[in-house]
């Protein structure tokens, strides 16, 4: 994996050597060149995982089994897209953490809103009764 990026670097350096008017910032920009087969494999996996998550609904699974399966397939798909299709797997760690860490912190917000929504539901039941 690392050599693919290094290879891209070398080719780009060659290219910019010819183009004098190219912006100087371009010199160290890593090109992402990987074999087509990698993309096809990821593509196939995304199809398989989507089919799996559809089958969760089709077979009518319920409760914690359903929710955990949905989350597992979702995270696997998201991971494949970000890592391979968006080339995050080949970026430097500083870039990965800058982009991936902030969305994970949204989970704190999620936790807060779960408590808040539970409280709202309890208040509504207390005032209006359990059903509509």
């Amino acid at each position, binding site marked *: 994996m690392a050599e693919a990026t290094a290879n891209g670097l070398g080719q780009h350096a060659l290219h910019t050597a010819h183009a004098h008017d190219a912006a100087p910032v371009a010199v160290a920009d890593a090109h992402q*060149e990987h074999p087509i087969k990698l*993309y*096809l494999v990821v*593509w196939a996996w995304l199809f398989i995982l989507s089919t799996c998550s559809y089958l969760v609904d089709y077979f009518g699974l319920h409760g914690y089994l359903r929710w955990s399966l949905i989350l597992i397939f979702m995270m696997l798909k998201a991971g494949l897209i970000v890592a391979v*299709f*968006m080339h995050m797997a080949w970026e*430097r760690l*500083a870039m990965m953490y800058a982009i991936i860490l902030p969305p994970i912190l949204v989970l704190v917000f999620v936790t807060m*809103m779960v408590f808040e929504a539970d409280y709202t539901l309890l208040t509504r039941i207390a005032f209006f009764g359990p059903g509509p």
Partner: protein
Amino acid sequence: MAETSLTHTDRMAPRPAGWQGIAADWASDQRAFKNVSWGKAMMWIFLLSDTFIFGCFLLSYMTARISTRVPWPNPSEVFALRIGGSEIPLILIAIMTFVLISSSGTMAMAVNFGYRRDRRKTAILMLLTAALGATFVGMQAFEWTKLIMEGVRPWGNPWGAAQFGSSFFMITGFHGTHVTIGVIFLIITARKVWRGDFDVGRPGFFTSRRGRYENVEIMGLYWHFVDLVWVFIFAFFYLW
């Protein structure tokens, strides 16, 4: 430009890896993203902010769904289609998912061929991506029409909690807008590739700056993000 060429010299030294690499890369007086161009870094940061927008939509949907006393309509039944006399649950949404994933695959290959300077294949794959994206939007329009005919409104629906309609129209509408904008920019970028703009360094019509084949990858980042958001919408709104 002046600052970037200054930092250019210190980039020649080998950089530390791992945790030390994070600290060293973020330390003052230098460029944080060492081997990422500004165009790509800024697209990532835009996508990060977009993540928060969609995160807030999904969060408000979660809050509405937890806090209502009225039962939530069953998406499996709401989005079922009658094909050949039998109700197939969620089938349209499943097809939409496969269409969008396929468009992500063609986009990834377009980026690859772009860096190989294969203009023809890059442009064709990008146009194929745009066509799949347009198909997705078309199916979404069909879905919206069907639900509106069945009486779903942002303020109510025949099956249960009123917040179902508002969450649905807000989340899928915003996602569909993203797909539509993506299709438009895909077509613009594909035209540039086809014409060879990135080979001859022709100035762009809007920014007057020379494009590079990296523009295809930046376009790809946006497109994969649209697919990524759909993964979360599919899981939380349609399957949950």
